[in-house]
């Protein structure tokens, strides 16, 4: 990247930045009123996220100047640290701060350094947490309600296929009808993701704001796996879409330490198969779950995108003073 001395000005207008500040204040007031504690989590950690499709930005730290440096990883979400706090008895907590993701730029919806609101509610499950998210989002965006549709329902509604039962071949054939891509992949989730992002998400705009819940068990990440009304194992995970843009991702959190350990190891294995970097796993999360994390639901919400939607902005660069190209 080259530095252009003429480009010193912010990309967001001062008016947008003032409105952004007002939304941040509104979020803090929302949680203060509900007695949810604001916590600040480390941005640099000795461990990195395990998700093979998130790349952590690495920085190097020296214990004293001139000493040999070692890597610290910029957090992609405060999830691991917050769960350690929950296990230590924090009760309901939220984090409003920066998260970092490598390779996520060159888009109107991404900046590699972005503001994330993440919160955890002991005693709530995914459906109950959706109520609270709807309260926050409807008040910030000035909309009436947030609808709810299961993952299976949106696939049925917009594509007439069953995402849980359809074979790999059926998913590939369906994707090829809608998406031109040169790709061989025998992971069903890849094709489900393509259908979701290319075909369904644009149509979700019709619904204004909608929670999609009960994702395939294979896409559980750190959510509990449960059985839906049809007896299908699904992830107690949901995403919130507003005007077709993904705004939040939440779980009824996994509390089983052994299962958590297996998922971390499986991610690390996938990373090895894909030739991705092997970074230290957050083993302290497993210890925290062993000690006992309360049954809870948690969600991460992209604040820059929330501001975009509240202001009717077309691009994330319109609501961030200095996006990466100008930082």
């Amino acid at each position, binding site marked *: 990247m080259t530095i252009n001395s003429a480009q010193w000005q912010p990309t967001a207008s001062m008016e947008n930045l003032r409105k952004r500040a007002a939304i941040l204040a509104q979020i803090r007031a929302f949680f203060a009123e509900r007695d949810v504690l604001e916590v600040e989590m480390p941005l640099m950690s000795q461990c990195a996220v395990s998700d093979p*499709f998130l790349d952590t930005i690495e920085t190097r730290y020296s214990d004293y100047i001139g000493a040999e440096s070692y890597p610290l990883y910029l957090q992609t979400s405060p999830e691991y640290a917050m769960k350690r706090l929950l296990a230590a008895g924090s009760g309901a907590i939220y984090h409003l701060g920066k998260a970092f993701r490598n*390779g996520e730029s060159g888009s109107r919806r991404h900046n590699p350094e972005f503001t994330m609101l993440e919160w955890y509610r002991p005693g709530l499950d995914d459906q109950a947490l959706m109520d609270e998210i709807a309260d926050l989002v409807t008040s910030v965006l000035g909309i009436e309600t947030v609808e709810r549709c299961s993952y299976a329902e949106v696939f049925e509604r917009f594509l007439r296929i069953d995402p849980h039962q359809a074979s790999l071949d059926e998913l590939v054939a369906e994707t090829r009808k809608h998406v031109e891509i040169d790709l061989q992949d025998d992971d069903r989730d890849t094709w489900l993701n393509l259908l979701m992002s290319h075909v369904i998400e644009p149509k979700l705009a019709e619904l204004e704001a909608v929670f999609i819940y009960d994702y395939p068990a294979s896409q559980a990440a750190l959510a509990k796996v449960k059985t839906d009304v049809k007896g299908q194992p699904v992830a107690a995970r949901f995403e919130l879409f507003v005007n077709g843009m993904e705004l939040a991702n939440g779980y009824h959190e996994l509390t089983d330490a052994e299962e958590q350990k297996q998922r971390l190891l499986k991610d690390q294995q996938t990373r090895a198969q894909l030739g991705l970097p092997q970074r230290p796993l957050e083993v302290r999360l497993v210890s925290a779950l062993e000690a006992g994390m309360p049954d809870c639901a948690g969600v991460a919400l992209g604040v820059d995108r929330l501001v975009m939607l509240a202001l009717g902005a077309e691009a994330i660069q319109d609501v961030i003073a200095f996006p990466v190209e100008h930082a």
Partner: protein
Amino acid sequence: MANYSTNQFKNGLKVMIDGEPCSMVDVEMVKPGKGQAFTRVKLKNLMSGRIWERTFKSGDSVEGADVMDTDMEYLYNDGEMWHFMDPNTYEQVAADATAVGDAHKWLKEQNTCMITLFNDNPISVTPPNFVELEVTETDPGLKGDTAQGGSKPATLQTGAIVRVPLFINQGDVLKIDTRTGEYVSRA
């Protein structure tokens, strides 16, 4: 030509897709909540003008296209080909009807046009945004009607037919916006 990886994709990048030169019109990263990222690109085929979408897996790469936009002076039409000259090198190229397309309506000798060259051959011609052309045929002008209402067709020196106000006369020179094909003013 160099290869470009998805992280180098940007608007205006010229690449070879299925053996034909294309220009990227819109580039958007698509990243599912959980799962690998894709790059969704709106492409314009520079030969046919067709615009469509293709998705690339992150890390995929495509070959660059040897496509160059260059300003050239329009010289003449020989009945089949349109001839242009590079004002710096005096090098000449001849473009066929496919490459010239609708631009032929606005080509006036000595005007500077943008010629898109693919492997040194012209594949498209973009006229200046505004051109000044003489009216060769139109109904006689209505005196006194200088502002409001009404229009009529007028044929210009290049053969183009545009809607003009009623007061325009044969022999008038008009300023035309070539992007919309609309009359702007008298020159």
